[in-house]
């Protein structure tokens, strides 16, 4: 309907984003009626998302025409931004930014490096950046979920953890059930995406490849390749994140730091 009113693509885009924003805001209002307050966080995220993607879109053409080595710096910048965003889900966890940065850079970074070396990801900047950003973005979501779940589980089980310590357990043993649950829950979106691939959703990458003239069967297989890489990078990131956060939750004298109150 909107395309009947707007012939200019820019105005059409703005009208479409206003419509999508209105739907998103309606959901926020619905949540508010159930006493779930997302207003400020959702408003900031929507505006920020729009500004960021428009800004990146404006310079993307220039970036994608740049020399190949710039892709390394672009991916590194993405990792640092992803670490800052996911660390915000871990308030109270000491060193959460460092944990997120190391996890995402080693987890997503190693999958990108290996797959690029194997030729699965094309070294052309126009392929490396979009595919790499998908892996980093998913690793960021996984890290945020893992840190958030770890924090809430530990705070809910301070009594159990300190009882185990008081009986002579090592920190790793005392916290093992919560590390495991945060790892498992952080991977639910990646597993569900892989499971529902082609049935519930046809991802943008595949649609883009079809539009640009790739053979449908190759586009489908490559989409699976991307999803498998996302799963591998998310899994490795979550594994590293939960390992690192475990060691940051205790002092050298094996005292629980994340207690939520002062004693």
């Amino acid at each position, binding site marked *: 309907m909107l395309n009947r009113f707007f012939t200019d693509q820019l105005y059409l885009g703005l009208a479409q984003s206003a419509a999508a924003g209105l739907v998103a805001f309606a959901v926020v209002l619905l949540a508010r009626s159930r006493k779930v307050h997302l207003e400020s966080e959702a408003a900031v995220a929507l505006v920020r998302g729009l500004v960021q993607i428009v800004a990146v879109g404006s310079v993307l053409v220039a970036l994608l025409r740049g020399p190949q080595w710039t892709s390394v710096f672009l991916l590194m910048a993405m990792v640092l931004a992803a670490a800052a965003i996911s660390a915000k889900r871990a308030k109270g966890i000491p060193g959460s930014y460092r944990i997120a940065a190391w996890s995402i850079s080693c987890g997503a970074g190693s999958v990108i490096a290996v797959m690029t070396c194997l030729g699965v990801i094309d070294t052309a900047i126009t392929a490396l950046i979009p595919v790499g950003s998908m892996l980093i973005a998913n690793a960021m979501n996984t890290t945020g979920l893992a840190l958030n779940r770890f924090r809430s589980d530990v705070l809910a089980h301070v*009594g*159990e953890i*300190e*009882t*185990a*310590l*008081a*009986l*002579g*357990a*090592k920190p790793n*043993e005392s916290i093992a059930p919560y590390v495991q649950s945060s790892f498992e829950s952080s991977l639910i979106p990646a597993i569900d995406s892989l499971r529902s691939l082609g049935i519930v959703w046809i991802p943008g990458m595949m649609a883009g490849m079809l539009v640009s003239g790739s053979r449908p069967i190759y586009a489908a297989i490559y989409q699976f390749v991307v999803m498998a890489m996302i799963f591998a990078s998310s899994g490795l990131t979550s594994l590293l994140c939960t390992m690192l956060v475990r060691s940051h939750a205790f*002092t050298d*004298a*094996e*005292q*629980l730091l994340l207690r939520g109150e*002062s*004693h």
Partner: protein
Amino acid sequence: MPVVLRTERLTRLIGERKLVDEVSVEVRAGEVLAVVGPSGSGKSSFLRLLNRLDEPSSGTVFLQGTDYRQIPPSELRRRVGMVTQRAVLFPGSVYENLGFGPRQRGEQLAPEVARKLLDRVGLPGYLEHDVAHLSGGEAQRVSIARALANEPTVLLLDEPTSALDEASKSGVESLLKDIIAERELTCVMVTHDVAQAERMASSVLVLEQGRVQRNGTVQEVLHA
């Protein structure tokens, strides 16, 4: 009797606030020291410093003459057992709970030893019971047996009966009193109940705003 536990100007600060303020006290073998004082006086904070669940800001603790910073934390906590106000049991059977401490050292608690511990705390035949089905009093008895399974030198008791109903309270208190006497355990017990301190302890430490107000035998402190 030799001194088993000695604190030396033990202090715990949170920001500017002194939770425990230069507490120096000695506990001799077989002695039960009751720590009393109003709410927020630092009793539980003091107890948590004794097995190093919290780190002292200054001062230290000597366990059988050794500065406890020289002892690996897990070994220290095996030797200085703790029973908390509310029993926190791990999901599973009573036997799994009793064997938790020894398992941390790679040892298996013999079922016969576990049965004897349960007989002693008044829960014969409970070895395979699921802890989810225990009453508050039964759970506290299991947590006492679990602490004893580690064969501690010192037992810390943090208001061990205050979360129990009246019927369970006196049973658990007399059980603790008998076990402490039988095993000649050295104990530090936090309580807000002065009458309980009088019934169970041989010496008393009165804390107020983290500082020692009085320290001495029950007679000296409570009947002076």
